[in-house]
C-alpha cells in the first residue's frame, strides 16, 4: 500500500498495461520525453522506449486516426488528447469512425483502443481548456466512456479500458491530478460499467462524477453534521456502460435523487439518469429529482467566476437542504 497522486496513478496504470502486453502502445503530444504537460506520463518513455511511447506533432486527427489503424490491425493503442476540448478538432474519429466501424462492417472491424484526455474545469484555463465533454462522448453509440475520481480508480479503470475490446474514452480530471489516495501494491484491475457507493446514506442519493465526487462527499458530510441529513453518494465512474442498477437500488432506499454534474446543463449525463429513474423508479421517489449542474454557459477564466459556475460544496449543500426541506 502506498499513497499515490492521481497523476502518478496514470503513469502507473499505463506502465502496468504496457508491461503486461507488448501490443499496448502509447502516442500523443509531449507524452514521451516531456512526460506529459500534466506530468502524468513521466518515466514511460525511458522505460518503454521511443517505438512504444511516441511523441507526435500537434495533429489530433493523425493521433486518433493512427490509433484506430493500429487498433484494427492488432495493437492496443492508448492515445492522449492533451485537453478534452481538443476532441472537437478530431471528433470525426469518435463520432464516425471508432464508434461505427464494427457495426457497419457487420462486426469485421475491431477497434480496441483508449483515448485518454484531461477533462474539466477548476484550473482557471478559460472556456477552451476547461470543458467537461463527457456528454459529447456518451451520446455516440459504440463508444464507452469512463471518468475516474481517485488514484485507485485511475489505475483499475485504465487497465480495464486497455483490456476492453471496444473504444474507450478515458476522461481524467485535470483538477484531480494533484489529489492523493491509497493504492495497494501489485496489479490493479477494475470493471467498466460499475458505479461505486462511496458514502452510504439513507435520506437521499447523490450521483456524481470525477471532480464532483469529492465535492459531493464533502457536501454529504456537511449535510450530516449541520442538518442531520444522511446522503448516499455514488461515484458514477462509467457513463457507458452505465451501472443503473446500483443507482436504482439506492433510490429505492433513499427515495430522493440528486445529480451533481460539471457539464453545462443541456443533455448532461444526469438528464439521462433522471429520465431512467422517472421511467423505472417513479413510485420510489418522494420528491422531484434535482440536477445540480454548471449553468448552460462557457466556463469563464477568472477564479471568482469559474468557482461560481461549477457546482460547489456549498451549492450542493444548499440545493439538497432546500429540496428536502431540512
Amino acid at each position, binding site marked *: 500500500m502506498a499513497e499515490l497522486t492521481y497523476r502518478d496513478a496514470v503513469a502507473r496504470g499505463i506502465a502496468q498495461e504496457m508491461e503486461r502486453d507488448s501490443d499496448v502502445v502509447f502516442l500523443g503530444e509531449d507524452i514521451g520525453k516531456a512526460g506529459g504537460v500534466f506530468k502524468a506520463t513521466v518515466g514511460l518513455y525511458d522505460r518503454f522506449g521511443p517505438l512504444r511511447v511516441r511523441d507526435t506533432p500537434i495533429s489530433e486527427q493523425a493521433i486518433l486516426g493512427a490509433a484506430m489503424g493500429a487498433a484494427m490491425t492488432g495493437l492496443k493503442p492508448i492515445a492522449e488528447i492533451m485537453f478534452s476540448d481538443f476532441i472537437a478538432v478530431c471528433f470525426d474519429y469518435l463520432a464516425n469512425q471508432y464508434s461505427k466501424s464494427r457495426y457497419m*462492417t457487420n462486426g469485421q472491424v475491431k477497434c480496441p483502443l483508449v483515448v485518454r484526455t484531461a477533462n474539466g474545469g477548476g484550473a482557471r484555463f478559460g472556456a477552451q481548456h476547461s470543458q467537461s465533454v463527457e456528454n459529447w462522448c456518451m451520446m455516440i453509440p459504440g463508444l464507452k466512456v469512463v471518468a475516474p475520481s481517485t488514484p485507485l480508480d485511475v489505475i483499475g479503470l485504465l487497465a480495464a479500458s486497455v483490456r476492453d475490446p471496444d473504444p474507450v474514452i478515458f476522461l481524467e480530471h485535470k483538477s484531480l491530478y494533484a489529489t492523493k489516495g491509497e493504492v495497494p501494491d501489485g496489479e490493479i484491475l477494475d470493471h467498466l460499467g460499475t458505479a461505486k457507493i462511496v458514502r452510504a446514506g439513507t435520506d437521499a442519493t447523490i450521483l456524481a462524477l470525477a471532480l464532483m465526487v469529492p465535492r459531493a462527499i464533502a457536501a454529504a458530510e456537511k449535510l450530516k453534521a449541520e442538518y442531520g441529513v444522511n446522503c448516499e453518494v455514488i461515484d458514477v465512474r462509467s457513463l457507458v456502460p452505465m451501472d443503473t442498477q446500483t443507482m436504482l437500488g439506492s433510490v429505492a432506499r433513499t427515495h430522493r435523487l440528486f445529480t451533481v454534474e460539471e457539464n453545462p446543463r443541456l443533455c448532461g449525463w444526469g438528464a439521462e439518469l433522471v429520465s431512467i429513474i422517472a421511467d423505472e423508479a417513479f413510485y420510489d421517489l418522494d420528491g422531484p429529482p434535482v440536477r445540480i449542474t454548471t449553468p448552460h454557459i462557457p466556463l469563464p477564466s477568472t477564479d471568482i467566476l469559474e468557482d461560481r459556475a461549477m457546482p460547489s460544496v456549498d451549492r450542493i449543500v444548499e440545493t439538497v437542504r432546500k429540496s428536502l426541506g431540512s
Partner: protein
Amino acid sequence: MATKQSRAEVTLADDISEELHLRIYRMQVELRESEQRAYDLFLQNLVKGTSHLSLGQEAVATGFAAAMEPGDLTFCTYRGHAHTLARGVPMERVLGELMGRDNGLLRGKGGSMHLTSVEHGVMGSYAIVGAHIPIACGAAWRAQYKGDKDVSVCFFGDGTTNIGAFHEGLNFAAIWKLPVVFVCENNLYMEYTPIGDVTAVKDPAAGRASAYGLESIIIDGQDADVVYRTAKTAYDKARSGGGPSLIECLTYRYSGHSRADPAKYRPEGELDFWRGKRDPIRIYRERLLQAGISESTLLEIEDVVRQRVEEATAICKAAPPPPAEILTTDVYADGGWAWRN
C-alpha cells in the same frame, strides 16, 4: 519548385508476364462491367441510397491491387467498389451490399460507401473525406512496430488533398517513415467543382509532396501497366523501410460524382475525349492485340466476365433481405448494443 517530376514510360516490357497482362485486362473489364451493372440496378431501383462509381478509373484500382502481396492492406473512400473488387472480393458480395441484401459484404449494414472485407485485406471504405489517411498510417505503424512486411495502401480523390487530415497524415507518415503508399486518383473534379478552381497548386497531390519531403510523382492513371510498375516500386520502397510514397494518378470518371449528379458542369467534348482516347480498357486491349494476344482470347475474357456479372446479379436478386435482429448486433464487442445494466 525544386521537385523531380517522374513520368513512367508506356511500353510493353518483360517485367509483366502474359498471364499477368491478361489478369490485369480481365480485372479492368470486371470493374467496368460490374460498375455498369450497379448503375443499371440503380435505374431499376434495386440499388437504393447513393453510390459513387469508378467507371473510367479502372486502371488505377487494377494496377495497384495487382502489384500487392496477400496481406497488404487497402483503405479506400466511398468510391470504393473497384478497389474492393480488385482485391478479389466476390462480385455478388459487393452487388449484394449495394442492393442491401443478406448476402452483401456487410449484410446491408454498411452500404455502398463502406465496403469492407478484412479477409481480403480491404480494411474499409471511408465516407468522411480524408479520415482514412491517418488510419492507414496507424496500420502501417503497427507493421513497423511488429516487424510485419505488409504495406498499407490508401486511395483517395483529388478533393481529399485540401482537407486537414491529408496534411496531418502525410506529415505523420513522413516523420515516422511508415510503410504506407498514398494514391491520389485525380479525376479532375472535387465532387462538382474542377479541382483547379479550389486548389493553390496545379497538381493537387504531387504539388504538395515536397512539403513532406516526398518525391513528386504523377503518372498516367489510364495505363494499368504504368500504374502497376509505379505501385510495385512504391511497395518495394515501403517494405524495405524507405518510408511512404505519394502518387498522383491522372484519371477521369465517366459518371457524375454520385448517383444524384448528372455532371453537367463538364465542358463539352471532355467526356468524349477521355472515353475515346484515354479509356483504360481500350488502351490496354489495343496493347495486348499489338503484342500478339489474339482477339478471340480477349473476347473470351469479356464473355466470361459478363457471364459472372449475370450470375452475381441473379444471386443478389434471389438473396433475401437481412433479418431484423441484426439491427442491434455488433454495436459493441459483446455482439450487442447494451449500454446499461
